[in-house]
């Protein structure tokens, strides 16, 4: 069997099986810490602003945003793609590594998947809100109707998008929940609180841990993992077709699907890193989320960052090589130079250059540096989406249409709101769900032993 020699121990501190259960359950069993309450309050305030902004948008119209006849999509779509990107990593993380049988995923996948579900939920707010008539949303579903029947346009990337995101949400949520069933059972059996016993007992679905259950559990996990691995690639490819199918300069390019998928994994892993550092720090899970885990993520980030850099350069090269004057204008006069220079370079430096620092082992093992870089990457990825959406739309084919774009407070509010929702979601996850997959950790404990021997 596989031996983890490159990475050192998967679980440190000589933990026993019983320790694992106790350690992971600790945050669930104790009173929530003060920092948790403060952040919760703060996130609630953000969410309230968000809900207010959503209310205004729905009742008054998209006119309350900064978008206009030239730029039909603004922050909403930027944030949508950004969140989807973040929401990518969880599943990518746990599923790719599951399929590749990378044991070190076990201490991270739960948090990553939770992040995915919350991020995708946040993401799905935007396409719904940016619709002018949200109350007619159901038109997008091809259901039999009395209009002829009138179906939908299967050629439209937005329809693909709708399908892909609903599928992705459903699958990542079920995958996440599936993994939690044995852990809920553990809590049910371990906790002393009657309420918790009942609640977790309900959600554990009567899990006992018999070998018949386990084998089906594993089979399902592999089936879901296998098909979701395809989905991970397809979701962001489909999101990229929202742009790639368009004619706008800077959009109409075949590099988009891989570029988007990699970008999503990049931002997602960065977010996973951010979260894991927080979990490790505040819940003292250093023994489970070890330095070698962070090291592994950091190495992936360096690698992906190189791909990102290559993708950026390829795009620029192709715009020149194609000889298409509109493409060239967008890249050379509107991104590299011109009105959107700061945004372009913010993206390029934070995504392609700064992560290269992680080549250094010293920096890689410095938690603070890792944390800062992971945040920078997320900001950089936001700018990447800004570049794609705004620079292409503001200055496209006919100069007479060129128009500036400034987000309104409402648009910003919705974004802040989703940040709030995300934080709230993650905090609730910290509080009520085992942050680390107990049974899976236990499953890999034996490799510790081989190592120790």
């Amino acid at each position, binding site marked *: 069997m596989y031996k983890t020699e490159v990475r050192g121990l998967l679980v440190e501190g000589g933990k026993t099986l019983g320790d694992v259960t106790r350690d992971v359950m600790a945050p669930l069993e104790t009173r929530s810490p003060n920092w948790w309450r403060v952040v919760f309050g703060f996130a609630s305030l953000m969410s309230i602003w968000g809900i207010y902004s959503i209310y205004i948008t729905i009742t008054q119209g998209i006119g309350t945003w900064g978008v206009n006849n030239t730029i039909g999509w603004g922050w909403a779509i930027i944030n949508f793609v950004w969140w989807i990107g973040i929401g990518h990593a969880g599943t990518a993380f746990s599923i790719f590594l599951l399929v590749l049988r990378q044991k070190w995923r076990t201490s991270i996948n739960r948090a990553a998947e939770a992040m995915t579900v919350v991020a995708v939920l946040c993401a799905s707010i935007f396409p719904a809100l940016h619709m002018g008539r949200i109350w007619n949303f159901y038109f997008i579903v091809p259901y039999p*109707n*009395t*209009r*002829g*029947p*009138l179906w939908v346009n299967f050629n439209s990337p937005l329809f693909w998008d709708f399908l892909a995101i609903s599928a992705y949400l459903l699958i990542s949520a079920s995958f996440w929940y599936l993994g939690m069933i044995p852990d809920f059972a553990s809590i049910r059996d371990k906790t002393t609180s009657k309420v918790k016993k009942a609640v977790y007992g309900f959600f554990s679905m009567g899990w006992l841990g018999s070998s018949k259950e386990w084998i089906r559990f594993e089979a399902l996990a592999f089936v879901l993992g296998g098909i979701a691995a395809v989905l991970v690639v397809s979701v962001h490819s489909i999101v990229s077709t929202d742009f790639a199918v368009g004619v706008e300069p800077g959009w109409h390019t075949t590099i988009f699907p891989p570029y988007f998928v990699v970008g999503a994994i990049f931002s997602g892993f960065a977010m996973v890193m951010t979260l894991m550092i927080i979990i490790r720090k505040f819940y003292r899970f250093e023994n489970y989320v070890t330095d070698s885990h962070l090291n592994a993520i950091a190495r992936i980030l360096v690698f992906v960052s190189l791909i990102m850099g290559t993708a950026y350069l390829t795009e620029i090269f192709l715009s020149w090589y194609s000889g298409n004057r509109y493409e060239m204008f967008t890249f050379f006069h509107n991104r590299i130079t011109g009105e959107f220079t700061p945004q372009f370079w913010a993206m390029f430096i934070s995504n392609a250059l700064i992560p290269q620092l992680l080549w250094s082992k010293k920096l890689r093992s410095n938690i603070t540096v890792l944390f800062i870089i992971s945040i920078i990457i997320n900001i950089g990825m936001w700018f990447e989406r800004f570049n794609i959406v705004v620079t292409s739309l503001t200055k496209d084919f006919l100069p007479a249409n060129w128009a500036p774009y400034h987000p309104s407070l409402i648009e910003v509010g919705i974004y802040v709101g989703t940040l709030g929702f995300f934080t709230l979601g993650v905090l609730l996850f910290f509080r009520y769900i085992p942050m680390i997959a107990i049974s899976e950790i236990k499953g890999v404990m034996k490799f510790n032993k081989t190592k120790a021997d």
Partner: protein
Amino acid sequence: MNNSFVVQFWKRILLGALLFMLLMAIPVAIFVSVSENTRDEEKAVVKKDYAGDIKKGQRIFFGQADLGENAPVCSSCHNTVEIDSLNWYPSSYEIGSKFENKGLTEFKKAVLSPSTPTMKKVHATLTLTDQDVTDVKTYLDQVAVDGLTPKKPVIKNTLLLILLTIIIIIAMVDLFFTWKVKFKVIHLVVILLAIAGQVKIVSHAAIALGRSQDYSPDQPIKFSHKVHADQNKIDCLYCHTTAEYGKNAGIPSVNLCMNCHILVAEGKISGKYEIDKVKAAYINKKPIEWIRVHNLPDHVYFNHSQHVGAGKLDCTECHGEVEEMHIIKQVEDLSMGWCIDCHRTREVNFNENRYYGDYKQLHKDMKSGKIKKVTVEDIGGTDCAKCHY
């Protein structure tokens, strides 16, 4: 499968469903009930200088008071309850409204010395004292305010929905607690059927929302298409003059009615009452406020001349057998699917109308026998912008 598993599984699912249904019952009930056409009217009470005994008047009207052996019962001709069919005789409400602002003497004169033969014949044996007249008039005044007694509701969808919910609850209670019926399958079948029924009601209500198939409101005049179009063989286009060349078929103006009714002052069965309304409208210069039956949403452009003039459609194809209707009714649901279905199958006058000469390819195909007929769809009749702009 393990029996206990099945039972447990269903128990959970059904309890969940029950909870969900109870939560949903209120909005669904509201939804279903509002989707049925209801209409409220404001009422105002007029002060009178006489006061009779309403109860007494009502009894007279319903024939419960003793007025003599041969005295006709008012309510046997003048309905007091809302009805679907056509009653040529004015209802109590109509009489009430007509005389609401008129004096007792006028009322008495109309009742006891009638002008039309039918009334003369029927009212001949009617004897009423002044007090009786006052009582009846008072009663009718009240009717004019209250309106007719609403007809007894046939099983309304709302009730059916509630009934089905009750059935589900009973089945569940028996399934889990009382265990009266041994075969568990029966419970499941009953519950599933009931749920299916509910889904059907709700989805039908949802589809019917904004539609009005079978809409057949009471019109201000009891105008019978059967009498005019069937018995008197008046062509549709005689009254709906603009259907052939205008966007709207047009509701005839009163002067058009008067073309005939200047002579026809009394119907064979209907008597004078309804025709008098037309005359009154003409004399008082008050147009008749008909209730529009066939309504299309604002975002649909429909042009009669396209269908009647150019398409040579018969009126009945969309409006049904109007000549058989006493009360006009919307026969088709006028849904988009209904329009499209017809456009897909209906042939156009491709060779007769010279306009279609521009469709060269279709003509070629027709000549070569590649196609047998040209439907509306073939010339773009299912394009959005043919009806929506």
